[in-house]
């Protein structure tokens, strides 16, 4: 195998027709008004909330949410979910025979601060096998969901770790055609974010695209 194989789940799900160019509307330019339970400071620490600490390598993942002009996006809801250190999700659909960790649920969330910054404490997720092709393994990753300021900015993506040898073979990572864009999915090890004698730090900035934030007609 010399290059990544296709992402098999796409076969019956990807539309066959091209996308229709739609005129933007005020709906799509407006900010999200989402109902949610209050976001608590503890929600950003995935290692807490259980009777003990989860197994695995404790890490901090921090960064900023920006738009393509470089402006920070404050008060934006970020949600993350991930496998445990053994590569198993706390989800009934995950049949990978790796151990569940009673001290790790694998979900967190936070709001960005006034400068667009966020910070999660978690454990490094493990790689895990999947059924896409023979001997297929997903590289370690953390799922990110970001609301942004407008419908056009809504983003769901995955964050990867630097130097992961599995990235080369991963159909999902490599489905992003542009090599430079793929690099933007890989966090950077960051000594500034690293907490001495506590946790390695990774930096992952998220840049949201989207149409200009000024509503038409204004």
């Amino acid at each position, binding site marked *: 195998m010399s290059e990544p194989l296709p*992402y098999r*789940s*796409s*076969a*019956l*799900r*990807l*539309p*066959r*027709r091209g*996308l*229709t*160019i*739609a*005129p*933007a*509307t*005020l*709906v*799509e330019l*407006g900010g*999200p*008004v*989402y*109902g949610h*339970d209050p*976001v608590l400071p503890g*929600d950003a620490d995935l290692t807490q909330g259980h009777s003990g600490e989860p197994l695995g390598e404790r890490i901090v993942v921090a960064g900023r949410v920006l738009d*393509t002009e470089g402006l920070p996006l404050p008060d934006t809801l970020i*949600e993350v*979910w991930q496998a445990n250190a053994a590569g198993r*999700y706390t*989800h009934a*659909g995950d049949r990978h025979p790796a151990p569940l960790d009673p001290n790790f649920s*694998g*979900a967190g*969330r936070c709001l960005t601060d006034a400068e667009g910054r966020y910070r999660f404490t978690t454990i490094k997720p493990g790689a895990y096998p999947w059924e896409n092709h023979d001997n297929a393994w997903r590289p370690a990753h953390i*799922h990110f*969901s970001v609301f942004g300021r407008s*419908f*056009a900015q*809504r*983003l*769901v*993506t*995955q964050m990867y770790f630097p130097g992961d040898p599995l990235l080369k073979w991963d159909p*999902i*990572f490599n489905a*992003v055609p542009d090599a430079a*864009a*793929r690099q*933007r*999915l890989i966090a950077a090890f960051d000594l500034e974010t690293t907490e001495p004698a506590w946790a390695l730090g990774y930096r992952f900035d*998220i*840049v*949201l695209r*989207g*149409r200009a934030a000024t509503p*038409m*007609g204004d």
Partner: protein
Amino acid sequence: MDTSTPPQTVGPFFTLGLGGCAHGDVVDPARADAIGIVGVVRDGAGEPVADALVELWQAEGCARAATSPEGSFSFVTVKPAPLPGADGATQAPHVAVSIFARGLLSRLVTRIYFPDEPEANARDPLLGQLDDAGTLVAEPEGPWLRFDITLQGDGETVFLDG
């Protein structure tokens, strides 16, 4: 140059991350003008998609729902007001929709229009440019509206660029 972070699939286990923000309704169902919208997401073989995430976005609020094992979703919302569009045109009332699923690298975007607005729909700039605008107009079903989403193949829903 595009410097944005590319999207990746939501994967099969996204319900883990929905936590405190998984409400299926845009507005209080007790509102007098509340409208229920139901639908099924199907793939290119006509099979229900049991692991999709459907989000509605309109001026009155946002809501999202994971599809059931039968591929179905339901929301309670209200019909938005008509909105100004480009060049003075008026857009018919509609709700913006995102669909995320395993197998989709990026979300799919579409719109729900309302069947009791034939005149506004006829003048809508987007519906006017489509051959199959019908896939974007919900159908009455008793007291509800039905908006099925076909990801691929016969009856494929019209999906929009962003």
